[in-house]
């Protein structure tokens, strides 16, 4: 799923400066799960914005809403009535949601309350880690299910590099495992080290022509 993090309050306040009536719209899918932009977070952000404004003596009225998913035009349409009455929209969705809202309500300024960070999963409660870089050329079949594009700091296909720290942690961060040591151990467990011994050609970094587009219905 998509993992995002709320921007610092000051940054958000800077975006909405001068607007007196705004809509804060949350999203019920990925950003709810990673505690960044769901219904709860809409409540908290709105409360903080009101407290900050009243502290300064500036006028700010907020309409709060949360829809199931902001990356679907039909669901975003549900906000139309609320959008009529406001000057601007603060979207608490990932970058996809923000842009969908911006496309559907072209005449209203839309501000992102979150920084979309990566595709990942919950490793533990409150801990989300990046797992996929959407390179479009998945090689997990020969790396024992561990992605070197994401988890190797240098994205090597013939790893490890010579910078692995003692014990098998990454050159960059002693708290991170060297992905290639992990891949070695995983393949060893499965008796498939031959996969790691093979030479892998340079990666096709243009497997997905960006910006990506898939047309499933095209013949």
């Amino acid at each position: 799923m998509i993992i995002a993090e709320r921007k610092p309050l000051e940054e958000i306040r800077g975006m909405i400066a001068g607007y007196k009536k705004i809509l804060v719209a949350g999203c019920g899918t990925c950003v709810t799960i990673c505690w960044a932009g769901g219904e709860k977070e809409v409540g908290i952000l709105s409360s903080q914005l009101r407290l900050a404004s009243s502290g300064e003596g500036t006028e700010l009225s907020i309409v709060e809403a949360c829809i199931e998913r902001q990356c679907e035009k039909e669901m975003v349409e549900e906000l139309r009535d609320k959008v009529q009455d406001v000057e601007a929209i603060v979207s608490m969705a990932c970058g996809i949601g923000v842009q969908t809202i911006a496309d559907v309500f072209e005449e209203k300024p839309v501000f992102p309350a979150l920084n979309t960070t990566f595709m990942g999963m919950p490793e533990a409660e409150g801990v989300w880690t990046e797992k996929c870089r959407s390179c479009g050329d998945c090689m997990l079949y020969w790396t024992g299910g561990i992605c070197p594009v994401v988890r190797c700091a240098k994205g090597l296909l013939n790893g490890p590099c010579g910078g692995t720290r003692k014990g098998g942690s990454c050159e960059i961060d002693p708290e991170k495992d060297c992905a290639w040591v992990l891949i070695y151990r995983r393949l060893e467990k499965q008796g498939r080290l031959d996969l790691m011994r093979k030479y892998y050609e340079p990666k096709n970094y243009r497997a997905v022509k960006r910006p990506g587009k898939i047309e499933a219905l095209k013949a």
Partner: protein
Amino acid sequence: MIRGNNKIVAFCCENSAYLAADKAGRMRLHYPDNVRIIRVPCVGRVDLIHILKAFEKGAAGVLLIGCHEGACQHLTGNTRAKERAAYARNLLKEVGIDEARLRMANIAPDMAQQFVREIEDMTEKTKER
């Protein structure tokens, strides 16, 4: 007796703080009348938005009063409340509200005097000067 115009909101766990407040009442202990006591089944039930909304509605200070560590009937309610209060303090700091206006305390159900002290302390601390 300390009087104050500043509003204090006290979320009181029904197994400890609320009983202590009750006892204070029966003992005819005087405490500031600016406090609004909100009874909760456990102080862990108090969420971030409740704390923020209390301040939005004009509270000068907010108290979360629950059971002693290890005595929570819901096992971890009070420890979670402690962490949540710490998180809330950061949210308050972001909007220019002094961290000292939010306090988490642990008392036993018979500690009427301690309950009164908490209210008095917060009232004094948050008085308009």
